[in-house]
């Protein structure tokens, strides 16, 4: 599913990854461990397509495709998902709107039908119950108090 061969990556001219090899088959779970600053996040970010990193050498195939030929959004649409160590805030955009847009972008890429806002809301509420998440999380966004006299 993903095959990393001799991957060397630098940032600001400093080599961080010095030849990583890793093959992950469908269904496998791998944990990468290492001391702080050893390059775990760097590996994840490079795979996800963050631009600041410079790939010096090596190759990565993902679902049979050359990963480095794909734009970040296409990697995501192919199924690469990165959970952020430090989540990013987009003020004024509710979680539910972001999730719906993300799901529909991926559906579009795969030639599937778009999911309608109401159906999406229903689906997500069911899923949230499953994992016992508070429902008010949906409409939350990094928003300031709204002011009204």
């Amino acid at each position, binding site marked *: 599913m993903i095959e990393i061969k001799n991957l060397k990556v630098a940032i600001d001219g400093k080599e961080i990854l010095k030849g990583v090899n890793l093959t992950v088959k469908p269904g496998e779970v791998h944990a990468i461990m290492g001391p702080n600053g050893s390059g775990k996040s760097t590996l994840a970010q490079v795979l*996800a397509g963050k631009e600041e990193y410079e790939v010096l050498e090596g190759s990565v195939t993902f679902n049979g495709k050359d990963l480095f030929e794909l*734009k970040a959004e296409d990697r995501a649409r192919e199924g690469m998902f990165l959970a*952020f160590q430090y989540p990013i805030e987009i003020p004024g955009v509710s979680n539910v709107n972001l999730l719906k847009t993300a799901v529909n972008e991926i559906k579009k890429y795969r030639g599937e039908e778009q999911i309608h806002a109401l159906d999406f809301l229903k689906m997500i509420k069911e899923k949230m119950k499953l994992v016992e998440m508070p429902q008010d999380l949906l409409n939350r966004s990094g928003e300031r108090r*709204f002011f009204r*006299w």
Partner: protein
Amino acid sequence: MSNTEINEIEQLANQEYKYGFVTDIDADTFPPGLNEDVVRALSAKKEEPEWMLELRLKAYRQWLKMVEPQWPNVNYPPVDFQAISYYSAPKQKKKLNSLDEVDPEILSAFAKLGIPLAEQKILANVAVDAVFDSVSVATTYKAKLNEMGIIFCSMSEAIREHGDLVKKYLGSVVPAADNYYSALNAAVFSDGSFVYIPKGVRCPMELSTYFRINAANTGQFERTLIIADDYSYVSYLEGCTAPMRDENQLHAAVVELIAMDNAQIKYSTIQNWYAGDKNGKGGIYNFVTKRGNCKGVNSKISWTQVETGSAITWKYPSCLLTGDNSIGEFYSVAVTNNHQQADTGTKMIHIGKNTKSTIVSKGISAGFSNNTYRGLVRIGKKATNARNYSQCDSLLIGDKCGAHTFPYLEVSNPGAIVEHEATTSKIGADQIFYLNQRGLATEDAVSMIVNGYCKEVFKELPMEFAVEATKLLSISLEGSVG
């Protein structure tokens, strides 16, 4: 941000202006130039009563004594007022009796803009007045509104048919002598919309005026007057576009609103005049005076504006909070890209007791543009218990643009409570990467970030307009991402 990202944002901002077409119609156009004879000819053309001509001449003489303001934070070569034509109207055979008689070329121009004028096809619940260059070409739903006593017509018609109302209120909120452009407008305004909502009437539909500049080398000087009598309500929308031309064109409008006791006026604008090309060539100079008087007790005036067009915008929709307990609101999104310049904001003048005002301003600058918020909150001596809340945010896209904030405060009543918040932020590479990683292309990511940023303003817009505003915003920022 990386270079490729900057390029992408820039591309996003540089999408073409799709309203830039020119309609080929036979027009009746004055030769360029301005003098008393031109003012007289204009007034005669519009078959105006003597008192209107007198008002125009007085304003013209006033204007001659005034100088163009230099304080706005904008730069442009001096306007040659003698090179402008002050009247251009599509030639029409006779007085129009129905929409069927409007020149099909004009109807199709409005249809291209997404403003169908045939009543049965019109968006449900929006009555439209369409102004093409200097004249109003069609006002829809008139009969239906008439039944309720609502007057919605072109300013020219109002001057002829509702002279008493016009005489009483025209210039009562923005006097001719108020500023250089209001004086010019009072002298040469060509058309615009007039609205009167009688006592106790809640206008059942959105009233809308669509302004279109078509002719070259003409100025557009429209004049709008809205009067909401006691306990009435009206929501009014205004949209504007112009063809792409290499020369700059002047648009100097005046809008006056009057809200009597317990009346409410909601005024929304989507301003999308041609902004000039990528290098700053051409575009509209948008020098506009908009002011509302909350004359009656418990009255309320809300301005909501989405400003994406024009080469230069100079505009401060304001509220005079005269009546006790009256409320003024200003919600603004001003986008500048490429070489656009905007100096916009509001004035909230608290005169009556317990008056309240809210200001929410969202500036977005991209490209080489300059975006200035300029606002005044003045609390008069007698305005006990007055309150104001202001929030002025700036969002920068790229690093060659500028954002400036000039909030002025004049408080003469010690009991007033005035709050001001301001933020400046940048669209971060991290935010874009985060959204890319969730499957959004960079263009859509920027659009989502910008829309989130503007949410507080967009939710003040009527539904159809909010959708249009969202689209317009992504268009005007297309190519701007860094």
